[in-house]
């Protein structure tokens, strides 16, 4: 499994909330694999179609209820509370079959606990693979909330260059996260 961290996912979520399609596609793609593992473990790998249904339901719930994500709180805690809710609901509907599943419901996947200390480092690591000025532009505009004009001034480039740079940077970032994942499977 890729070492996608809380803060990487959170950056993708924040970008998605701002309407960034590339980041959103990347986020859903990573989460989809996390969920397949999460539900697969709890339902047994044989229940492939049930796992797929739950994965889809959960991604849809994330989409329809993303308004309830608090930008100041950890993303994975929010997301896996939804995943757990869907699992409990699944057990309720199927008549409580799979007692083991219910017991395992409460634990979060390894490595997805609140980890504020390393947050800043992870974001740096995520952006490190990009050309310096692109990383800088993404940091300024997407994370610090400054205007394109300010970022352009800072980078000494035109506004349209900055916009293109941010767009390409995020695409590259998404590709990198996906690549990380594929290597692992």
């Amino acid at each position, binding site marked *: 499994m890729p070492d996608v961290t809380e803060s990487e996912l959170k950056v993708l979520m924040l970008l*998605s909330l*701002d309407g960034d399609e590339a980041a959103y596609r990347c986020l859903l793609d990573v989460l*989809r694999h996390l969920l397949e593992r999460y539900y697969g473990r709890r339902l047994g790998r044989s229940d492939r179609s049930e796992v*797929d249904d739950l994965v889809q339901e959960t991604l849809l719930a994330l989409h329809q209820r993303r308004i*309830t994500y608090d930008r100041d709180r950890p993303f994975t805690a929010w997301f896996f*509370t939804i995943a757990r809710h869907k699992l409990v609901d699944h057990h309720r509907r199927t008549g409580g079959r799979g007692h083991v599943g219910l017991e395992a419901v409460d634990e979060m996947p390894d490595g997805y606990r609140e980890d504020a200390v390393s947050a800043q480092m992870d974001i740096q690591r995520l952006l490190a693979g990009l050309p310096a000025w692109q990383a800088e532009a993404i940091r300024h505009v997407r994370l610090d909330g400054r205007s394109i004009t300010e970022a352009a001034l800072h980078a000494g480039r035109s506004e349209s260059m900055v916009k293109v740079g941010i767009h390409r940077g995020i695409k590259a970032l998404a590709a990198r996260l996906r690549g990380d994942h594929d290597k692992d499977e």
Partner: protein
Amino acid sequence: MTKTNELIEDLVRDLRPVRRHALAGLLARALVPGLALSACLILFGHGLRPDLGAAVFVPAFWVKSAYPLLLGLIGLGALLTVARPGGRPLGGALKVAIVYALLVALAVLQMRQAASPDESHRLVMGISALYCPLIILATGAPLLAATFWFLRRSAPTSPTLAGTVAGLAAGALGAWIYSWGCIENGLPFVALWYTLGIVLCTMLGGLMGRFWLRW
């Protein structure tokens, strides 16, 4: 597998930006028509209290109005908590208890100042004790609809708890609206019959939550 890919593409295509305080904005959008409808019920179905001009100089009038308003605000704060996955509004319960204790203390003070047993009786029972809780249930109904509309668009993970909180907020705000039409000045009356109306609305909300807040 491919179905999941298709779903992801559909969701990406449907992506719209979400502002920072969007959840509170959604609640506000639900409350405006709810409050308006509830106010109309009192204005046109019941009428403002006839002596409103004089009542605004009576401290008890403002206590009667502040009590449900405070409960309503506490309820709305708790509502924003239960609307998020895993949200537990523990602080809210304590605040409700404090507000109620304050009201009871003021009610006791008012009872002590009563000149006659007749006056005491009136402070407790008023002349509208029997239908006051029912009116509060009625003015709470549009707000219950509003808070449920809001919760069905958010992500409460415990339906009964979320419904209960919605019922509390709706009942308390409904009682606040009614406080502008109600002719009573007795704080013991408020502590008993207003509270009963709010409790009924809270219980109704909890019951409704079990059925309508599953997702």
